[in-house]
């Protein structure tokens, strides 16, 4: 029983930590890898979608590398989930997110 409780606490702790990491707000420069960015029509469509997020100051789509460099306005923070949702809504699968990239 004791073992089960310990495992339960560890599990809950890991879940909370994971959720906190996922929801950590984005700021400054952020590079997001995106699968399937080769098609220009879709890539610029993603650009159009991301532009709708309040606080996004600049977007640099790199079709060759399959990545998006987001510039977030100074003093602004954007929820990572909001960005990921926009990417998924545009029909793409988001990959690794690198924070603080200078491009």
């Amino acid at each position, binding site marked *: 029983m004791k073992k089960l409780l310990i495992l339960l606490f560890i599990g809950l702790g890991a879940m909370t930590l994971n959720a906190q990491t996922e929801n950590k707000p984005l700021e400054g420069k952020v590079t997001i890898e995106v699968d399937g960015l*080769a098609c*220009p*029509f879709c890539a*610029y*469509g993603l*650009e*159009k979608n991301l532009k709708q997020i309040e606080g996004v100051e600049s977007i640099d789509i790199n079709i060759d590398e399959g990545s998006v460099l987001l510039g977030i306005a100074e003093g602004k923070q954007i929820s990572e989930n909001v960005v990921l949702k926009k990417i998924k809504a545009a029909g793409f699968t988001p990959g690794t997110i690198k924070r603080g990239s200078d491009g």
Partner: protein
Amino acid sequence: MDRFLIVLVFSLFLFSCKKENKEWTFKGKIELPSKARPLALAKTGNDLWFSDPEQFRLLKVNLNGKVLDSIVGIKRPMNIDFNKGKLYVPEFLTDTIWIFENGRKSALSLNATPEAPAGLNVKDDTIAISDFYNHRIILQINGQVSFIGKEGHDRGELYYPIDVKIQGDKIYVADAYNNQVQVFDFEGKTLNVIGKEDGLNVASAIAFNKEGFAVTDQENSRVLIYDLNGTLQQILTTNINYPTDVLFDENMLYITNFKENTITLYQLN
């Protein structure tokens, strides 16, 4: 001797009846400025306009690739069209269709709002626009608007249409992510579906000549040539790198290579 003459005349008759079997063959490439990524083409006289959305511009070049003119500051110009001295440019990020004529720029008056216009075709008082994110074609005739298609994968439905061409009383749609060309009448009834069985993987552009039409098979780096009935005639693969547009000019065929700074030329022989 009589028999010989009969055979000779018959052979000559057969020879004269033999259909000329012309084929498109690779002719060469037009080198463009190093940073250019040509997406779409329009022919004006002896020169070519191409849209370069990566650089937010359009460039006019001669057939040697020398830059003659430019239009800058367009937020992702897509599949352009040239008709009666006017260059029509869909601006993907602002949902605007720009018209350039004699150095003047004006916005096309549209009675419907597209979401990411990817391509268009103008014939007299009729304009057809590929409404990429609304999965439909906007058809405006003398200011009257109607729509063709809706989102889906069945006959008559579209999934991210990129290019559209008006051909007589038919409308041909590059139904990009359904990997096919759909042919509609002006009432929106599907007349034909072409290309799926030929392995099309993202049909991004259509061009017509007298004999038929060409379709870009973007993800397979091919261009497929069809007759007017939609029967496959030839598959072009040589020196084609991610084609996003195709254009006929008499016995020449121009193909954009979006992944490099070139336009490929084929000739009918």
